[in-house]
């Protein structure tokens, strides 16, 4: 008992603080992850659990990785995912940037209220936010009829529609992604823009720049870290999204998340599901590195501001 106390006094407390989360993450994050990587080169067997190594199967089976490049199902899924995620990110930026900039320009009391309004949906259920759009996009919803009327008013007679087919399209996926991920774009952008010194703007205007030129020459270059951060926060989860495409997407052109889930649960091809998962992770490495670098830059820039 005494020895234990003295061990704790000397270094034990430190070893416990490092060791417990270390052990936890190794057990429940690292090992499961390594199992997935190992699973991706296993062979599917009709046993339970449905995989095997060696025996009559090859020890390392890279067939799955070959299928990724040859079967159109996978190629299309990757292209659809990356396209949808990229388009959603661009729309988030187009809408989120002016909103974040606007937030820095309103009075302080308004700013707090509006910020709260940006964050508020985040605290409500993600699933319900997707669901809200299902209600709006359905064939006979007021929203759809309104859009249909507008469409019919504009286009020639031959193109009129009874309702606009919105549900179960890539358009719906992108729309809902923009809706659910927009706060992730606005918040880092706002944090970045708020730190910029308004005096710089004024200095630029003083030197004869018009507001748009000020934006282009002063504000925009300085907000690149915020754009990258926000962009990655939207792009990365969007590319792996499962819920949104399952609820409002086009079932005939599934996204990666859906493929992984289906291979795993429906087809019960664990090795292939793992292969697709590993491929998705590899695709995410590039953007993540970019994000980490800018994150670090933004943080060190912030540190320099402080005395």
């Amino acid at each position, binding site marked *: 008992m005494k020895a234990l106390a003295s061990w*704790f006094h000397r270094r034990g*407390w*430190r070893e416990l*603080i*490092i060791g417990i*989360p270390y052990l*936890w*993450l190794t057990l*429940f994050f*690292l*090992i*499961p992850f390594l*199992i*997935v990587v190992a*699973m991706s080169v296993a062979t599917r067997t009709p046993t339970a*659990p449905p995989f095997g190594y060696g025996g009559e199967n090859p020890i390392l089976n890279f067939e799955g990785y070959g299928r990724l490049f040859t079967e159109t199902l996978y190629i299309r899924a990757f292209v659809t995912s990356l396209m949808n995620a990229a388009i959603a990110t661009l729309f988030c930026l187009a*809408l*989120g940037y*002016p*909103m974040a*900039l*606007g*937030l820095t*320009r309103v009075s302080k009391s308004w700013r*707090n209220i*509006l910020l*709260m*309004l*940006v964050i*508020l949906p985040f*605290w*409500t*259920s993600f*699933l*319900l936010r997707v*669901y*809200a759009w299902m*209600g709006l996009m359905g064939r006979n*919803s*007021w929203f759809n009829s309104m859009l249909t009327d507008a469409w019919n008013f504009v286009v020639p007679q031959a193109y009129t529609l009874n309702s606009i087919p919105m549900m179960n399209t890539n358009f719906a996926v992108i729309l809902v992604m923009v*809706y659910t991920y*927009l706060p992730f774009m606005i918040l880092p952008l706002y944090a970045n823009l708020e730190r910029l010194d*308004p005096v710089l*703007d*004024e200095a630029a205007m003083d030197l004869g720049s018009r507001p748009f030129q000020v934006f282009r020459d002063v504000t925009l270059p300085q907000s690149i870290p915020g754009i990258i951060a926000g962009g990655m926060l939207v792009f*990365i*989860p969007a590319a*792996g*999204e499962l819920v949104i495409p399952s*609820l409002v997407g086009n079932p005939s052109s599934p996204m990666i*998340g859906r493929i*992984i*889930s289906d291979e*795993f649960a429906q087809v019960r091809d*664990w090795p292939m*599901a*793992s292969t697709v*998962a590993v491929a998705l*992770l590899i695709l995410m490495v590039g953007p993540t590195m970019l*994000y980490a670098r800018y994150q670090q830059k933004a943080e060190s820039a912030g540190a320099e501001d402080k005395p």
Partner: protein
Amino acid sequence: MTRRPVFLITVMCFGFAFFYIPILSMIVYSFNESRLATVWGGFSTKWYVSLFSNRQVGAALWLSLKIALVSASIATILGAMAGITLARFRKFRGRTLFSGMVTAPLIMPEVITGISLLIFFTLLANWIGWPGQRGFTTITLAHITFSMVFVTTVVHSRMTQMDRSIEEAAMDLGSRPWQVLRDVTLPVISPALLSGWLLAFTISLDDVVISSFVTGPGATTLPLLIWSKVKLGVTPDINALATLIVALVGICVILAGWLMSRAERRRLAEQRLAYRTNG
């Protein structure tokens, strides 16, 4: 800047309309008489009645709350330890791996976390017979793992902003490092621990994807219940449920905002008083 940023204000109006019109529409239609969820058929509260009489919803909510409470609490402890480790222990063996392990779950797609944990639990059950059945335990373990890294981030950033000299002062006054941690560091970062806990709690309460993989027979959390209903299409009782959740969150947020602004005002008043009384 006397010029009004007309363009920005226009976009902001559009943006907030975009944020709130779907939610408002959902609230309005929760009072819809018609069974067709998208066609207005007159005012009624019958969906609330049917919601409250639905035992399934109550059980799912209770399970979700239990999981969120347990997982957020454990995640806060583990996340605080990891955050302290990152901020204060500059050198130890495996630091690179450790910092990798606390960042990777942040960007790991949920599907992958889900299947990796499910494979892990399945194999574990095959090898050592545990977990015999998936459900509360496995969901809680999964939630702890992926929400603790959010707590870590919050705690780490608070610790790096904290004035280190107050920890040195405590050490200087005779406290050993672990006593410094107990007496000074933890109390000072307690707001970060609270917000970390809240974050972990909401993440757990909101999770569908990971839960859907690691759950087992009979363990249906509220998001899983909603997920299974919504997959079949729009149903009015979900509208009612959504309305209740939005109302609850709204009240909590407004209350929190009011409490915070009151505390801030009181603090300022005390400060003024302090300066006045000593001239």
